């Protein structure tokens, strides 16, 4: 089975203006919604209310979750606490007017209505976020170092124009994905952070594969201009690009449809990330390198300088 029996000859670079406009529109929408709507931070980031209740007889946890969801607390995290009859419920902060007391009364009432055994409220307290500010700061620092590291390595192995292209593609992907997260208002929690990190790895991988082919073709194809070299390279790697994106999307689709709500946000973020990442390695990374004026001379293999070659012979 093959996707394409013959080498495709799609003129990718010819449509790069169109692609650029599309990217700019997507970026604008993404950044605008990020600014106006913001992220819907999950319990990990916001903290919330912790309520401990005690049952006379051990309850079935899935029923407890259902009872809370029916009462409108569908973001509640339910855990047994020590004994099987004790349960803690954690809730994200709700509208500001609602007092903590009312919240815990509502929760206990919802639980009482759905349980034959007696339910007593043990305590109710405010808990701070799991992700402190210093964690977020360290995370941002880590991202900066990642970008610098990539810039350095790609400059070394390829050329600085490529490294700028790779980083531009990365920033493009992250911003658009953030935008989609803001538009859909999916709960931004640790799993989404993991998905964003995975997406960066994926997008990077994809970009480098295309770059590698461009470098190879610059060296082997003579008398062809840069635009054509990039076109040929993208076409040559096209079936690989689609194949890899396809298998990854296959896994993600399975996670999305069968994984339940916990993996939902993770899978959704990554699906967006893979789609944008695949697109960006063709259009953003390569286009950026092309616009910065990448040429064959930049990538010709440098002659290895032999030690002492620049010295006059002794005799």
């Amino acid at each position, binding site marked *: *089975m093959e996707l394409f029996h013959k080498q495709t000859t799609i003129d990718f670079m010819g449509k790069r203006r169109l692609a650029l406009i599309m990217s700019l529109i997507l970026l604008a929408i993404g950044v605008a919604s990020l600014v106006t709507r913001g992220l819907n931070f999950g319990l990990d980031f916001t*903290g919330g209310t912790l309520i401990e209740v005690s049952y006379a007889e051990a309850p079935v*946890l*899935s029923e407890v*979750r259902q009872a809370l969801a029916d009462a409108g607390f569908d973001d509640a995290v*339910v*855990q047994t606490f*020590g*004994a*099987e009859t004790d349960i803690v419920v954690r809730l994200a902060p709700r509208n500001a007017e609602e007092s903590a007391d009312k919240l815990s009364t509502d929760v206990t009432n919802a639980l009482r209505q759905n349980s034959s055994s007696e339910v007593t409220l043990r305590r109710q*307290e405010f*808990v*701070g*976020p*799991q*992700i*402190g500010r*210093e*964690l977020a700061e*360290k*995370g941002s620092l*880590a991202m900066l*170092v*990642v970008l610098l*590291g*990539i810039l350095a*390595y*790609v400059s070394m*192995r390829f050329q600085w124009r490529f490294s700028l292209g790779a980083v531009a593609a990365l920033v493009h992907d992250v911003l658009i994905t953030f935008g989609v997260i803001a538009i859909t208002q999916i709960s931004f929690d*640790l799993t989404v*952070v*993991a*998905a964003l*990190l*995975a997406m*960066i*790895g994926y997008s*990077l*991988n994809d970009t*480098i*594969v295309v770059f*590698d*082919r461009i470098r190879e073709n610059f060296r082997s194809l003579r008398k062809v201009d840069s635009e054509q070299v990039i076109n040929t390279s993208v076409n*040559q790697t096209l079936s690989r690009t689609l*194949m*890899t994106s396809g*298998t990854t999307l*296959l*896994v*993600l*689709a*399975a*996670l999305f449809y069968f*994984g*339940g709500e*916990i*993996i939902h946000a*993770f*899978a959704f973020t*990554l699906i967006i990330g893979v789609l944008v990442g695949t697109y960006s390695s063709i259009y953003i990374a390569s286009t950026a390198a092309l616009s910065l004026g990448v040429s064959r001379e930049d990538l010709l293999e440098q002659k290895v300088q032999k030690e002492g070659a620049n010295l006059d012979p002794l005799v």
Partner: protein
Amino acid sequence: MNRYPLWKYVLIGIVMLFGALYSTPNLFNVDPSLQVSSSRGLDIDINLADRVSNILRQENISAKSVSSDESKVLVTFADGKTQEQAQVVLEDTLDTRQNTVALTSTADVPGFFRAIKAAPMVLGLDLRGGVHFLMEVDMATAERQQQDSIVDDFRTILRDERIRYQSVVANGKTITAVLRNADDLAEALNAIRQQNQDLSINTENRGTDGVIRAEITDQMIQTLRQTAMQQNLTTLRNRINQTGVAEPSIQQQGEDRIVIQLPGVDNPDEIKERINATATLEYRAVDMENDAVAAANSGRIPPTSRLYYQRDGSPVLLQKRLIVSGKQLIGASAGFDQQNGSPMVRVTLDGSGANRMFDFTRENVNKLMAVVYIEDRYDPDAERFRKHEEVISVANILEPFGKTFQTTGLESFQEASNLALFLRAGALAAPMRIIEERTVGPSLGQDNIDRGFRSVMIGFVLVLIFMALYYRVFGLIANVALFLNLVLLVAALSMFGATLTLPGIAGIVLTVGMAVDANVLIFERIREELRNGNSPQNSIRAGYDKALSTIADANITTLIAALALLVFGSGPIRGFAVTLSIGIVTSMFTAIMVTRALVNWIYGRKAKLKALAI
């Protein structure tokens, strides 16, 4: 011809055997258990295991197994309820000053795996739950420390300004400084105000004395409480993160409490000690003019000195003036002294600390310097923390030193490494104590977990089917490699003691999905070569050769990203980076070497190969 030398097959065989061994423990059940060990990281009493068994038998608590080694006794139970009953009983019966009893979980693996130190991955808080600690931050102590530091501050200011004073004392929120001469009032007030703008300060004349009275405002106390809480949270995160890749949950609860949840940890006592303890060092000069024993007996301590005790109980007089304290440390690592092999901590001072140390040691060659070990210990009788100070070493200054040096005199390597950790991770702003320890169930419902696992399986199988359909024999070969990659990845994560969470599982599957990429690259190259009219054998060789540099570049770039996240990220980001880094390495091995070995084995010998099933 495509042949692999025998040694490559042997290498692959060894690696896979290794992978199989270390991933197998994940297939066994995990029992709730208790770990009893010495509170100070020393070896335990030989009879402890028997005593524990006896206590449990008397209370009619049935344990599944009781085992012990030099440092701990491990008791496993059938369920969590029995485990908690046993904990209560053991804590009541055993002397808790000598032994700590901590909740943990142990895999029910055959002894063989334990002998090679193969253990399963720890399941995260979301999948299995773990241990929950509720810590109370002792704000009263923090406030007292604040008062003390203001008093010290006033004294220093007055001394620096050469203003003579009778006394500076703190009484609750009021700090009172009595000057010898009321004429100095204005000058003193000015100097103090300049450096303490938050204090509400007023003055009064009392006869010839001038009195300055400063109140700590409620605002200041509020700020103190908030910063103390923040610093404790940060320090705790640092400390726990340094113990490994465990994914803890650390949250502030209410005004002065912290909830820590840890997934089934390996060494709960160590963790407990680490989250709870405070320890730091001070370097002081020994008072060589006065006799310490005489001073201890008579109680007459020279005004410039303070009486300390060494670990063997002998008294020693140290000068009140501090040379360097733990706050000036920027690095610390534990090790063994090269000369006599005793445990030591190697410390690095910051710029000002290094200067002070150098100046002091240069002027005091051949005199004695002492190292004071300070920790806050909880006194259950008084229900408060007490500062516990002891001199761990007194040594002759042989030559001046500054930035880095080592400190010996610690009881065990454990103590040395804990101290190094505390010095590195920063001090707690206020002491804390555990007021509640419980086990918590998984934060995800079982149905959610089941659904998660099922989706992961479906995704994996879909990829396998797709690869087999698309690349036929080569697809099957890639599938074998994918499966082996999964085994290796699980083995490596188990060896590193990684914590497995549901997003982590999804991350593994994703690594597997991306591992396909290397094979796709190779296979597409082979197809290209075939299309260009190359012979099958040559196409295989060229396909692998040409794809190699692409795969290497792509993976190394991703590896750089993963390593940067590992070094500079923290908490969950690190966990993800570990999985990603290991996944890159294992997938390169299986996708390149293992598939090539299989391809060579199937096709490599056939000289007249006409076509490839690709």
